[in-house]
């Protein structure tokens, strides 16, 4: 068990709380920097995907995990970002500018969705974002002279001033920089008053309002920031996948993104990364496991969906705090050994909070 003796107020908001954090995160950083020389090209590409999805996941985590607004159309923001990036880079705009515009356009889309979202909550918000997702997907498919429609759109590699990032390694470093940057931005945001306002809104809107938090402003801000991160993630996704078509940004993608944050662990920054790792590694594990199953099951097309569904059900039923919650439990077990009790993380019995007045 570690006791932190605080002698300065700065320690309360420090990013690394103690020496252990410094050590382990440095080791992680070292591994990530060394990855291109350590990993095979295939796994490096997978790691790049993890970083891209983590950026999108951070955005959705900010919205769903920290502000308590669930978006069922987040793939739309991903799509807006991806297409903005693709169109601008293909037109020869320098890459950093295109990346920023991708974030900006997605943020604008986020504000547009956020405005009706101010009046509705819960499942109605889900419906509003779901509808927006469908409309954007159809819009992308129909706006053919800009997006190539259903025929698709190929994306040039990121380039600026005669310098092109076309190798796997260089693109990996780009994603790494963006992912680390957005993680630090989110961490900083969460310890500022804005981030605390988000968390207050999540825990109780009425209490937050009573404490002087401008609900409309902060909800819109949360939507905008979340969409901006999704857009930046989408821009990287566009370069990674190199070929965009509207059906990459459909409802399935939106649900996959939600699945990512729920399985990673709602309300934790780690959760976005763990969820992204899950989302990328799971299909590989299923592919590997196929060989051990009888051919009738292993070769079936529905296997992946079934496994996803079962994992999702299992997490919601048995581990609502997600992968990060599981890690917390394991860590506590080791820290307290042999004094860990089963009931320490027991879910609080809660009565159903009714939205009805009666």
């Amino acid at each position: 068990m570690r006791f932190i003796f605080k002698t300065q107020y700065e320690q309360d908001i420090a990013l690394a709380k103690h020496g252990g954090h410094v050590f382990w995160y440095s080791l992680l950083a070292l591994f990530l920097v060394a990855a291109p020389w350590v990993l095979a090209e295939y796994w490096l590409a997978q790691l790049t995907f993890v970083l891209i999805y983590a950026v999108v996941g951070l955005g959705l985590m900010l919205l769903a995990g920290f502000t308590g607004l669930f978006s069922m159309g987040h793939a739309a923001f991903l799509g807006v970002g991806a297409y903005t990036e693709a169109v601008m880079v293909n037109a020869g705009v320098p890459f950093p500018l295109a990346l920023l515009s991708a974030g900006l356009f997605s943020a604008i889309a986020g504000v547009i969705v956020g405005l009706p979202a101010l009046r509705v909550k819960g499942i109605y918000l889900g419906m509003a974002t779901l509808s927006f997702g469908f409309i954007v997907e159809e819009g992308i498919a129909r706006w053919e002279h800009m997006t190539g429609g259903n025929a698709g759109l190929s994306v040039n590699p990121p380039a600026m001033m005669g310098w092109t990032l076309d190798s796997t390694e260089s693109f990996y470093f780009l994603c790494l920089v963006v992912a680390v940057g957005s993680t630090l931005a989110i961490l900083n945001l969460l310890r500022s008053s804005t981030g605390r306002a988000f968390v207050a809104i999540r825990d109780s809107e009425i209490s937050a309002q009573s404490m002087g938090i401008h609900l409309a402003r902060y909800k819109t801000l949360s939507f905008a920031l979340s969409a901006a991160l999704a857009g930046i993630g989408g821009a990287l996704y566009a370069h990674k996948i190199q070929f965009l078509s509207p059906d990459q940004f459909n409802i399935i993608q939106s649900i996959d993104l939600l699945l990512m944050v729920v399985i990673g662990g709602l309300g934790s920054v780690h959760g976005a990364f763990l969820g992204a790792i899950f989302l990328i590694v799971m299909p590989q594990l299923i592919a590997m496991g196929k060989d051990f199953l009888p051919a009738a099951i292993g070769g079936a097309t529905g296997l992946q969906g079934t496994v996803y569904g079962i994992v999702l059900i299992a997490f919601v039923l048995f581990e609502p705090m997600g992968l990060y919650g599981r890690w917390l439990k394991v860590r506590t077990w080791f820290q307290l050994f042999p004094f860990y009790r089963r009931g320490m993380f027991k879910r609080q019995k809660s009565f159903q909070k009714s939205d009805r007045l009666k």
Partner: protein
Amino acid sequence: MQLLQLLISGVAQGCIYGLIALGFVLIYKATETVSFAQGDLMMVGAFAGLATMTWLGFPFWVAVPAAIVAMGVFGVLLERLVIRPILGQPAFSIVMLTIGVGYVLRGLITMIPDVGTDTHTMPVPYAGQVLQMGPLVVAAEQLVVIAFTTVLCLALFAMFKYSKLGIAMQASSQNQLAAYYMGIPVQSLNGLVWGLAAGVAAVAGLLLAPITFVHANMGFIGLKAFPAAVVGGFGSLPGAIVGGLVIGTVESLSGFYLPEGFKDIAPYIVVLLMLVLKPNGLFGEKLRKKV
């Protein structure tokens, strides 16, 4: 005349949306949770009908009730095994849970060898028949959908109004705690509501099957039933049907009068407008949450 023709096909499609939306609303009223598995339950219902008709070889009039009852039992079991342990958790957990159930159902149906990945035609006695009413040409499938939905709605209305069970369901959906104190077995009622919702979904699946086809992805139509439920106001049973009709006719009319592409997103534009203008829907109650 063209308009009337469009309206009829829109109403028939709207009835299907309405029936699926009815499932959402039943579950929402009883347990205040939203089931994203409703469309997939409908798909399983259609496959159940197909199974009873073709492999078990039941005659049509036995196969249909058998499939509906089987789905009802399935709904009760689903509630008992998966949903009940999690009741009382944040509503979003349950939404994710039902999304998971939908994934599993769709995956399992696809995994049935030789059957799951194909599209099938449902062998109904009225398939392909056409009614000529003056200049109007109406497919028998559409008439059956409209007639069956009307009958089902009347039956449900009578059940909720006059039977002890229906009144108990209404009571528990208004206030679970008070209903429990009055001696209503709220938990088993919730199970029954899930059974009822699954049964209604099966009806929708069986009605839709002759119009489209039976395949594993037909459940995605459930995503268009959400707008129907929202337009009607999520807590209102007649609202679900009316919302379904609104969505169905809007879709049908926009498919004809508006440029290509609007047909698929018209329901969502309607629902966005509805949420901005009248967030509680046409028949929804205006409520404010207490602290």
